[in-house]
């Protein structure tokens, strides 16, 4: 895998690494993918159920039901995180619980809860987005780049 990295190391380190690679407990990739599929799919299914509920019983259309659905899922996540259940689910499901928006909510809520011992302003306030920060930063930046390119293409490229 990391052939390039290996070349820079001393011979002892290379030897040790190949020894380590032989002994290392491999990640059960296939099993993890199956778990991620089912847990992730279930979370999306719950999301679909919530959004259908909003469409049927409130004044939301398919377009607008997305926002309250996300908020509801994060609300549920807050309790699962606070009661210490979400990290168990996360250990079991891996990406299955990290990729849905509940994972984003969990990252924010977990950081907020964790840093409350440092005070509410400098603890909770400044550390809350520690984990979710990269997602927001690169989400916004990549969206900016994509939207910029698309706008320029539409305006001057006649797309």
């Amino acid at each position, binding site marked *: 895998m990391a052939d390039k*990295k*290996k070349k*820079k*190391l001393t011979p*002892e*380190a*290379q030897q*040790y*690494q190949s020894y*380590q690679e032989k002994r*290392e*407990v*491999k*990640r059960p990739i296939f099993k*993890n993918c199956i778990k991620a599929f089912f847990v992730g799919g279930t979370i999306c299914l719950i999301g679909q159920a919530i959004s259908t509920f909003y469409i049927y019983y409130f004044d939301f259309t398919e377009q607008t039901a997305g926002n309250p659905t996300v908020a509801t899922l994060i609300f549920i996540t807050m309790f699962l*995180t*606070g009661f*210490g259940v*979400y*990290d*168990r*689910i*996360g*250990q079991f*499901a*891996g*990406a299955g*619980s*990290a990729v849905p928006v509940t*994972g984003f909510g*969990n*990252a924010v*809520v*977990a*950081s907020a*809860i*964790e*840093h409350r*011992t*440092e005070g509410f302003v400098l603890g909770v306030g400044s550390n809350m987005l520690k*984990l979710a920060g990269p997602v927001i930063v690169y989400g916004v930046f990549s969206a900016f780049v994509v939207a910029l390119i698309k706008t320029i293409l539409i305006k001057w490229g006649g797309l």
Partner: protein
Amino acid sequence: MLVGHQTWMFKNKPTIISTGTVGGPFEANGRIANDIDILHDDMWIKQDSFEKAQRTMMEEACQIALKKTDVEKEQVQFFISGDLINQITPSTFTGKTLDIPYFGLFSACATSMESLALASSIVNSGGANYILSGTSSHNAAAERQFRYPTEYGGQKPPTAQWTVTGAGCALLANKGTGPVVTSATIGKVVDMGITDRLIWEEQWPQQQ
């Protein structure tokens, strides 16, 4: 005293006359639970942060070690200790509570033996009669400092390590009964290029 390049031989028999050990809830389920003096079933130990809990465990360990002997706290010359947390605050605050002249160390897990080696060396050379040496760590405090918040649902790979919740303390004396520290070999820092895939890879890119 120095033998070879990095080994000390102690001729004056520095002796561990007593020890104090404290463990957390995870350790209470382990195989050596019977050998731990105090087991807590709560990660917080009635403190308001994990770091304070770690300090409390260290204080308890020192007090137990002292209580097991008839040595008074005032007879102890030095307290040598360290831990994993930023600025080794749990150890430093324990030093404040104990009110004993204090050395702070930092060598991650190796702190336990490093403090013992240094204490033995001081006792052996006649620099002190009694020295408390020890170390402490707290799973949640370390997780949060080095990895993710404890409630974050990140998946740990099967090779992930688990930081212990506990504290250990040894009272070293120049005479008495107990195990004798005969020698100590000090190791070098070696980088074998192994990284913790969880987060360390970003913080410590492989150098050279």
